[in-house]
């Protein structure tokens, strides 16, 4: 029986205090590791016979502009299909040098997910075979999902509303 506690124990046994911030929001085990370790953790979760997290459900990034030094988070959602357990794994990186190792060697499906993450957050996946924009135009020179990028053009005046503001 694979429970959140056993997963947590095995991770701590293997990686010591490098894996930390264990939480269980709405029942899903969530933890983080240093970004240099992301492939080691993913590989361990993949290879271990009891853990066997071999299905990458989703990969995306989140931008926390106020977290100095760890502004960008890359979030992996992994699924063990036989035991039907999901976990969430995060690595944080600074925004000036957003380099994270690519998981494409482990999961073919990570290819486009990482391209999408690069496209919107500018995370540089080291080792990705074809890291270029996927949904936006190639000429774009900013990363639109970052929080500092406004939804609408700020110079517009036709939508100003004294009562409710824009």
């Amino acid at each position, binding site marked *: 029986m694979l429970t959140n506690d056993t997963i947590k124990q095995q991770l701590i046994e293997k990686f010591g205090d490098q894996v930390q911030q264990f939480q269980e*929001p*709405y029942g899903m085990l969530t933890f983080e590791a240093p970004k240099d370790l992301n492939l080691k953790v993913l590989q361990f979760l993949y290879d271990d016979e009891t853990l066997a997290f*071999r*299905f990458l459900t989703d990969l995306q990034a989140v931008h926390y502009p106020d977290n100095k030094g760890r502004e960008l988070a890359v979030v992996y959602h992994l699924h063990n299909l036989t035991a039907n357990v999901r976990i969430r794994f995060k690595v944080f990186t600074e925004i000036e040098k957003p380099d994270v190792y690519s998981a494409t060697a482990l*999961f*073919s*499906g990570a290819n486009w997910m990482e391209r999408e993450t690069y496209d919107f957050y500018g995370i540089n996946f080291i080792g990705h075979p074809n890291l270029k924009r*996927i*949904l936006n135009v190639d000429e774009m020179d900013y990363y639109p999902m970052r929080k500092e*990028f406004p939804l609408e053009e700020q110079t517009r005046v036709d939508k100003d509303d004294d009562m409710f503001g824009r």
Partner: protein
Amino acid sequence: MSDHHIKLPEGSIEKQTTTLNLGPTHPATHGVFQNILELDGERIISAEQTVGYIHRAFEKIAEHRPLYQITPLTDRLNYCSAPINNMGWHLTCEKLLGVKTPKRVDYLRIIIMELARISDHLICNSIVGVDTGAYTGFLYVMQYRELIYEIYEEVCGSRLTTNIGRIGGFERNFTNTAFEKLEKFLNEYPKVLKEFENLFTRNRIFMERTIGVGPIGAERALNYGFTGPNLRAAGVDYDVRVHSPYSSYEDFEFEIPVGSTGDCYDRYLVRNGEMWQSLRIIEQAYRKVKEFKGKEAEIFHADVPEYYLPEKKDVYTKMEALIWHFKIVMGEVDIPPGEIYFSVEGGNGELGYYLITDGGRTPYRLHFRRPCFIYYQAYEELTKGSMLSDAIITMSSLNLIAGEMDA
């Protein structure tokens, strides 16, 4: 090349490969896709997909909208089965807010979701038929998709981009007409589906065009993150409805059809099998809904005043109701902080919502796990070495929906 062949001059056409732009608006692609194919004769050497032609920045827009205003965005993901997307979003919000929906609401939702699944698979399978040269099936089933759309219309007022339901349930109870139309559908559709199968399943031309075309093994499919009918066609019985039941799916008897080779024919068979199972589920759900009598038969939403507009007569006469009306419409309801991943079995596979809230009025981050986007990257592997005409069938049998891919 051996010596007895005529020596061709350097750079002549026979020695070269051809680059073909398939799309972005080719009629056979059924959507805005571009494929740059490298062809040797008619065999595909490599394919490079370009996506993003209808990217609308839903994730960015969602960061600026209250929860209920995000539902119309989800419509436009997989627009062939919009109600599943809507329900998935409502269920995500309900899980975040800790709302418990009444059983009747769950069953009504299941009816709508399974109808949506049928209309989704119906389109996909009949389009595969069109691409193999059989137009009749497509035209024939279209009137039953129409009937499904009439049921949506009766429930929520719209047909394609439905915006159906609310956080907590439905906007109003199902009318009698809606149930009558559902009964009509349940009576007539099995015959039609049988006939549709007669047209295709053992049709020699159809079989020869689809068997062994665009195959993928279970191992590769899982590695690529396949879900839904395309994964099940490869022989993996993963279905979100069974693995992590939502909206009371655990109360229903149904099977998961699986294939073995993961080719176009298996994908077709799995989708057809799923339509029969969906019919079974709808019949059971309708029977369960009919068991609610009297006051219970009038329940169509959970008690979530923050997300339900008060009665209009109260809004006109009572201060409190007026304030709530204003707050809800302007999206001034605070969302509790949390981090949540929730998924439903969409028409194409696991449709996931990753939602982070920080206590404001809008999500801090919302990510849609779009099954189409994830499995389309396997297209090159699926079509490599096959004929151009097979690539077209592979594309339609994957059920690629541009709206879902580009979000």
